């Protein structure tokens, strides 16, 4: 026989940024994020000790580039997870965006005419990222308006988008056309998207830009506050006048945007649009968000934590390669680290809850003594 208990929800760890007014030192928040940071430092220390090649400028740049792809996707995923949803379609969206972009470089067959149009590079980028956002928008509509389960909706979209990618590429990678032709006025793609301003890969700059913007959106705008509120208690948010459906739709669009941008960056990175581009990105992104302290049930998580989470995964993966761990064991170790991260989170919460309960009891006894007097 089950029974619904009626105790007030135990104090949860508050999201950083959801606290207006005086910034109070929140031990739990520091621990949740600190845990990822500590893990990161341990990983760096171990691999730096094991290999001289680990902490070199060249290797760090390589890591940063890989981390950036995952981190950008993870930022979109963070938005969705803060709402209590999940977006499994982002990896396929990365592939689809690149496939659309690649096809646009090949030229657009205009219907009813024999003409082929070759859009300029910026048009190509905007259109293909737009396709990514469109995928997200469809996800959002299905989840918010039809109340479909995010897991199933985006799982379906994972197949749809990957299938469309394969249809568009038709078994062939698109490589040569990406450079463009001067007479078609569509050159310059690599000049921008494979550039390294100030020595850092462009993807790292995009990551920084996105992190800053998303962080401000989450902490300083009504939209961000609404997102935390709907993720924690949708009913209460709705009764407080929060446009919960609109918020829900938009986060999937943002997730699609992030995936689309990564599609373009990754295509530039490997100089090719391939049918398997972005495979498993959704899983890495979820892992980064979770390692960064977010709750899959929604309402808790930060940009900073997510970026650190992405670095944990990146530094770990790279380190395992450098010290020569077999690819099979790499997977085992990466998986174990993800589980460990979540387990530590749970254990901390259980300890926190017990401590709060003890405090409450003590407070009540004190209160009881005073009222009885």
């Amino acid at each position: 026989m089950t029974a619904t208990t009626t105790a007030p929800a135990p104090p949860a760890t508050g999201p950083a940024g959801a606290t207006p007014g005086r910034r109070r030192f929140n031990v739990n928040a520091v621990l949740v994020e600190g845990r990822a940071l500590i893990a990161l430092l341990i990983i760096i220390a171990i691999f730096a000790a094991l290999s001289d090649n680990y902490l070199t400028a060249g290797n760090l740049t390589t890591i940063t580039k890989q981390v950036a792809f995952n981190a950008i996707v993870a930022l979109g995923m963070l938005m969705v997870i803060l709402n209590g949803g999940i977006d499994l379609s982002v990896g396929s969206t990365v592939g689809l965006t690149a496939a659309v972009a690649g096809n646009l470089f090949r030229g657009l067959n205009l219907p009813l005419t024999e003409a082929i149009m070759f859009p300029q590079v910026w048009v190509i980028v905007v259109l293909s990222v737009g396709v990514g956002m469109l995928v997200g928008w469809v996800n959002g509509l299905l989840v918010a308006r039809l109340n479909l389960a995010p897991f199933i909706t985006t799982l379906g979209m994972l197949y749809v988008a990957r299938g469309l990618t394969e249809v568009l590429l038709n078994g062939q990678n698109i490589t040569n056309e990406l450079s463009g032709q001067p007479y078609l006025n569509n050159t310059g793609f690599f000049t921008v998207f494979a550039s390294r301003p100030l020595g850092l890969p462009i993807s790292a700059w995009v990551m920084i830009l996105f992190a800053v913007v998303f962080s401000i959106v989450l902490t300083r705008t009504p939209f961000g506050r609404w997102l935390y509120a709907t993720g924690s208690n949708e009913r209460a948010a709705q009764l407080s006048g929060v446009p919960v459906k609109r918020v829900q739709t938009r986060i999937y669009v943002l997730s699609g945007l992030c995936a689309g941008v990564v599609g373009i960056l990754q295509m530039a990175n490997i100089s090719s649009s391939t049918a398997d581009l972005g495979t498993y990105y959704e899983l890495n992104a979820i892992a980064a968000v979770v390692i960064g302290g977010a709750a899959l049930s929604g309402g808790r998580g930060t940009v900073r934590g997510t970026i650190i989470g992405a670095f944990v995964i990146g530094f770990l993966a790279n380190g395992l390669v450098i010290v020569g761990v077999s690819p099979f064991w790499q997977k085992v170790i990466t998986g174990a680290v993800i589980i460990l991260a979540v387990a530590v989170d749970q254990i901390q919460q259980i300890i926190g809850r017990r401590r709060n309960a003890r405090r409450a009891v003590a407070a009540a006894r004190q209160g009881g003594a005073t009222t009885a007097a």
Partner: protein
Amino acid sequence: MAGTESRGDTAVAGRVDDEVVLRAIDISKTYGVTRALKGVNFEVRRGKVTVLFGENGAGKSTLMKILSGVEQPTGGRLELDGETVTLASTSDAVDRGISIIHQELNLCANLSVRDNVFIGRELRTRLGGIDYAREAEITRGLMDRLEEPIRPTTLVQDLRVGQQQIVEIARALQTDTRILIMDEPTSALSAAEVEVLFKVIRELTSQGVAIVYISHHLEEAIEIADHAVVFRDGDLVATAEAADIDLPWVVRQMVGREADYDFRDEPREFGDVALSIQGVTVAEPETGRVVVNDVSLDVRAGEIVCLYGLMGAGRTELMEAIAGRDPISGGRVLLGQTDLGTRSVRERIALGLGLVPEDRQRDGLVQMMSVGANLSLPSLLSMVRRTFISRRVERADVEQEIADVKVKTAGPGALITSLSGGNQQKVVIGKMLLTRPKVLLLDEPTRGIDVGAKGEIFSLLFREARKGLAVLYVTSEVGEALTASHRLVVMSRGRLVRELDPRTCTRDEVMAASGEQETTDEAAPHHPPTEDHVPAATHAETDRNGAS
């Protein structure tokens, strides 16, 4: 505490009494900073029906959860047959012969009666499979004992609610229950079904089963009681034999001394009609059952109108329909001159109509957020300066509101869950007041909070009313309805049945109007041919939050 009567006379620990099967000694329970039970002594006797009376939040449900192993007491101990026991879980309690039947039935509707009776305790054949034949036979025996001829293979979803309750009882009997706790067992039953249930209860007590019975239907409960105990604000305040009690006694004990607050002398000069409800009808979306039937009511600026009614009268449905959460199926709602039509909750808040929902935890608060973030949530857009929320404006508004509604908190950054129930409620009210409403709806605003905080909340509402706010609030506490409103309307079975002046009407008038005193002779007008007005606890109105 003043008003404590005969407490300690009867429930003395250690007294030898063969009849007592279960004794709770000095049981206390604390949730966060809320003290739901403050050292209660309580006993259950063999073959008797012990009825628990008390208003919402008085501590009845909490005690029942402790007796049935759902929750652990913060202090005190339980004695079963004179032995101290710990009930670590519900199955622990069941093993010791204590079963509970909740207000919301815990049955698997897709399984048969037989499967439900034996769920979790299936009988095995020698090969390890389920011994369906023997289970069916025992189920048939139980049904005979309960005099309800239900076939063991019937699916539970095909049974009427009353029959489903019988199945729950059968399940309890199957585990050799000696103490059966029934929490609001009649809230979903028709009068005829209540009679069957009472017959079953009598049957059980004659077989030596002890019954603990909780109900808001006072007369009904008095009818079935052998012993009565009354809870108030987490204390057991009175015990009596059934022969010695009547309805006025029970009500007096439940309410205790009249509350500290009394707003009957408040000025009665009202402005224009601020909220006009015109013939509003609401049907449940799932079932089409009419829960609010052709309700019309005007509330003027500066006026506080109390809507009194029992659980299941359609109060919450009416409030949520006015607030825009659920669509109305007939009539219209006007805010000032504006027909609200199909406007969303959000648009209504912007126009000046806010709702303080009944269930604080589920609908009122965002638990992961701070006190300040909860307060500012509905009015964030007004705090935006150049695309961003201005921390300065937000902090100023939030701190002002904390001071205005007198929230006791460490500061705007404190977690909302660190507050007591009363202070949490002040936050829920405060966040709606921050939206500068013209009309404020409150659904059970004082549920589960202590008397002091109740007084503060009403002072706050009357203060705002003097400034022109129109208030419509729901309560199921008569004392509150009489002392804290300008006008009192009574709702029963989806309709507004009476309008009363709280200065002149009596407690009995209010209760009679709410249908509380007509439970036995009501069957004809309210039951067949249509089921439209059958009182039934809806999900929104169950007592789930009563203890917190």
